Every structure is written in C-alpha cells, then in structure tokens.
C-alpha cells in the first residue's frame, strides 16, 4: 500500500497558507487545511471558487504562489504527483480503449504488461458492478458506468490520496443520486485518503466526514462542518432525516452569507 507510513506524520495532506492567482485574479487565498490519513473530506463552494485549482495544487500539477503543501510528508511537486491520483470532472475515458483497458491504464503506465494489467483490474470490475462490460468501448457505456470506470481507473493507480473533482457534475440527478450512494459504499472499502470537490452541498454532506466550505473568489475556508458520514440507512432515508436537513440548512446558511 502506498499510504504506508514511515514519514512520521499522521497527516495525509497539510496545506499552510496556500494562495494562487492567475493573472490579476486571486483564485485561492490563505488556505489552511489538514486532512488525516484515510479521512474523507468534501470541499464545497460556488463555481469558479478555485476548488479545481486547490485539487491540482495538492496533486502537484500546479504550484501555489504562496504557502506550503505537504502530502504524506513530502512537499516537492513531483513527489506529490507520485502520491495523488486525480479523477477529473468529465470521465475522460480514452475512446480507443475498452472499459477494462481504460481502468488498467495506470498499471500499464507503471510498466505492467497489458495482459497482467487486465488480470489485476478484472476482479474490481465485478465489485464495481461493471461485469460484462470489460470489452465495451466508452461510447457504448452510460454516463453512470463511465464515471464508475473513471473512478476505478483512479483507484487502480494505487495512490495514498484520491482527489475527486466534481465526479458526478455532468450526470443527471437520478444517476447522480445512485452514484453518490454507490460511492459512499465504495469508499468504505478503499484505503486512501479522499478529497472530493463539489458545488452540491447535499453531495458534500453525504460523502464527506468533514465538509470544508470555501468562499466565492478569492477562495478562503469559511468553515468546516461535520458531514453525514456516520449516518446509517439508504441515501433517501438519510437526506430526508431531520438531522441531515438541519446540517444542510447550516451549510447553506454559511455559503449564502
């Protein structure tokens, strides 16, 4: 497991005073956040609030203008890149690869032969409810199935940190609700630290143990709430429960202010 320790810190991600500007626009300002190993954090905020930029900074794809980023004890961008896997907003599956080969691409990138990469990915295909679609092309899959392949592809990278950038943003609300429930269960079986970005408060509360609320640009941490992670029952039972509704009201009040 890549999230194995040895660096003497219990924190998976530590952001200290992170800021980033593009041209004259300040996307992020003074972000202080820390996320324990194997925690699940949802970051919610208005569109254009620098949420995607924050994920890219954690991943080491973008360097911040100010502040320090530490991921599993390392700070250099290249090393951070080695410890994070990013699931983009759109599924971005490669149309020239089958569903199975798309999911297995991280293994191939690491030099595993194609046959072996397929063999190792295949068991997870069944667990993810994708059995029978190994050889399907992305164009032949529904939007929900494509997102599941995309999530599996990110998982197969075997990184300590999973960064999910609005993973269900492009889906219709019914598929979205199904996948939220699915991801809740799937994440329980997943070792890595998860950071999920969304503009949907309900999604953030459902999927995060903690919910970080970002402000409008420049993005700052407004508050950190407790998510509905421990709630039991089906998604519908949870989102209609009085506790969840009051959490949601709390969050919306903060965002609206």
């Amino acid at each position, binding site marked *: 497991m890549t999230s194995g320790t040895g660096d003497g810190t219990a924190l998976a991600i530590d952001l200290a005073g992170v800021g980033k500007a593009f041209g004259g626009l300040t996307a992020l300002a003074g972000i202080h956040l820390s996320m324990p190993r194997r925690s699940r954090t949802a970051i919610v905020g208005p569109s254009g609030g620098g949420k995607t930029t924050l994920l890219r900074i954690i991943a080491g794809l973008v360097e911040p203008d100010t502040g320090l980023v530490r991921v599993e004890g390392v700070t250099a961008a290249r090393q951070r890149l080695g410890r994070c896997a990013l699931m983009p907003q759109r599924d971005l599956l490669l149309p020239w690869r089958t569903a199975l080969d798309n999911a297995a691409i991280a293994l191939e990138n690491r030099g595993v032969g194609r046959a072996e990469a397929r063999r190792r990915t295949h068991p997870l295909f069944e667990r993810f409810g994708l059995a029978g679609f190994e050889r399907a092309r992305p164009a032949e899959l529904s939007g929900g199935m494509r997102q599941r392949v995309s999530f599996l592809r990110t998982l197969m990278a075997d990184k300590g940190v999973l960064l999910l950038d609005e993973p269900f943003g492009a889906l219709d609300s019914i598929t979205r609700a199904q996948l939220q*429930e699915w991801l809740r269960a799937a994440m329980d079986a997943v070792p890595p630290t998860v950071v999920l970005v969304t503009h949907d408060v309900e999604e953030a509360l459902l999927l995060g143990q903690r919910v970080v609320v970002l402000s409008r640009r420049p993005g700052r941490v407004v508050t950190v709430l407790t998510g509905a992670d421990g709630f039991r029952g089906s998604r519908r039972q949870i989102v209609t429960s009085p506790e969840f509704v009051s959490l949601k009201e709390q969050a919306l009040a903060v965002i609206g202010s």
Partner: protein
Amino acid sequence: MKNTMPSATQLPDLPELPVPAARGRAARLRSALRHYGPPALIMLIALGLWELVVRLAHIPEYLLPAPSQVAADLAADWPVLAPALLVTLWEVLLGFVIAAVAGVALAVLLHLSPVARRAVYPLLIGSQTVPIIVLAPILVIMLGYGIAPKLVIVALICFFPIVVNGIDGLRSVDPELILMMRTLDASRWAILRRVEFPAALPTIFSGLRIAATFAAIGAVFGEWSGSSQGLGYVMLAATPNLLTARIFAAIVLLTAVALVLFGVVSLLERICAPWAARRSIRD
C-alpha cells in the same frame, strides 16, 4: 422513486448499448444509392454532354476526343499504358510512404520539443512558398533520370500537409487528459503513446488524405522533367504526335491512381482509428 434502493455494488444501471439495427440487403442498397447515386448521376450527365457536343460539333479527335474514344484508346493502348501505370504507381506509393513516415516522425519530434518547433516551423511554412514543381528539373540534374528525383518530388509535395496536420492533431489533445495521465504515473512517452498519438490519428489521417490527392501530381512533374517511362512520359511523348485520346487515357489512369491511394488511406483510417471513423460515417 423505487422502494428498494440499489445495493452498493449492483446498481441496476441499464446499459445503453447501441445495438446496430440489423439492416437488410435492400436497406443497405438504398443507403448506398443515396450516397453514391447523385455524384454518379452528375458524372454520367457530364460525360453524356461531352460525348454529345463532340459528335454534334464534329470536333476532331486530336482537339478533344469524346469519352467513347478515350475508352477505346484505353483498351487499344493498354500494352503501352499498363507498364507506364505500374511505374507511376510505384513512384506515387513509395514517395507517399516516405512522406508519411518522415512527416509523422517530424510532427512527433516538433511536438515533443518546443525548441525544435520554434526553430523549424517557420522554415517549414516558408518552404511552402517555393513552388516545389520548379525544383523538378534541378532534382533531375542532381539525381539523374531514375526513380530518385520522382520520389523526392512526390515526398516533398505530400510532406507538408502531413506534418502540419500531425502537429495540429498532437497539439489539440484535451489538456485535462494529460493532467489526468500525469497523476496516473504516465511518463512523457506513455502520454504520447497512449493519449496524444491515438487522439491525433484522425487529424493525421486528414493530412494523409490530402497528401494522397497530391502524390500523383508530383510523380507526373517528376516524369515531365526527365524520364523515359511512366504515365507522365506517355503524355509527353503523345503530345507532338497529337495522340490526344492517349493523353486523356493517361489522365484517367492518373486519376484512378490518386483515387485508389485515397481509398487505401481511408480504409487504413477505419482500421487504425475506428472510434473516429464511426463518428464521421454518421455525418
């Protein structure tokens, strides 16, 4: 909403597999007719008018042969035309393959190295202002009467659209795809091989198709500048003898060469990039 929520790992997510409707022979014929019918009809009308004008106006064959005379000559002169066709076909194919390999290789190189791109790209554009055709006599002086100068001219003419389309295709890859690949441990080479090159294939093939239509022109100019065989040479030799029908017959064969090359490239595209071909067929 249903009462039973789906369990975590077995979502009743109905697959939306596009089942290709089993099309009957008649339907396929109708579709082919819709596709090829109109251009075939216009072609037939044009040939008919040509035939009619030549016959009614009593135009002598050495000025403008009728389509029927060209067809008759094609059959009668076949012993002369067939070996010439083979020579030209070989020049076109070989020159095209050289241009394709060199062009795609240069496109990849210029894509990988921004420094090389800045250094070479302006020269590449500038080279297009030199009419390659006027280089033909010089190349004959330098390389002799053999196949070499023809290959160089064919390759030079085909090279440019292949390189430019190759660079455009490699550059037009969704940048988010590349970011995603980088977080999945992809090396520069892995990104090129697994993402950029396949993504660029449809654009590369557009360049190859354009080049395929130019290749025959290159071979003819090469032959005109100095040779003793090939379709270009046949045309040149027929001119002082006013064998106009033979010239037209050679033109028909040259067109056929270009069309066959175009067809082969299109076929290769469907084999190498079926995901893109499927899209373009629907258009």
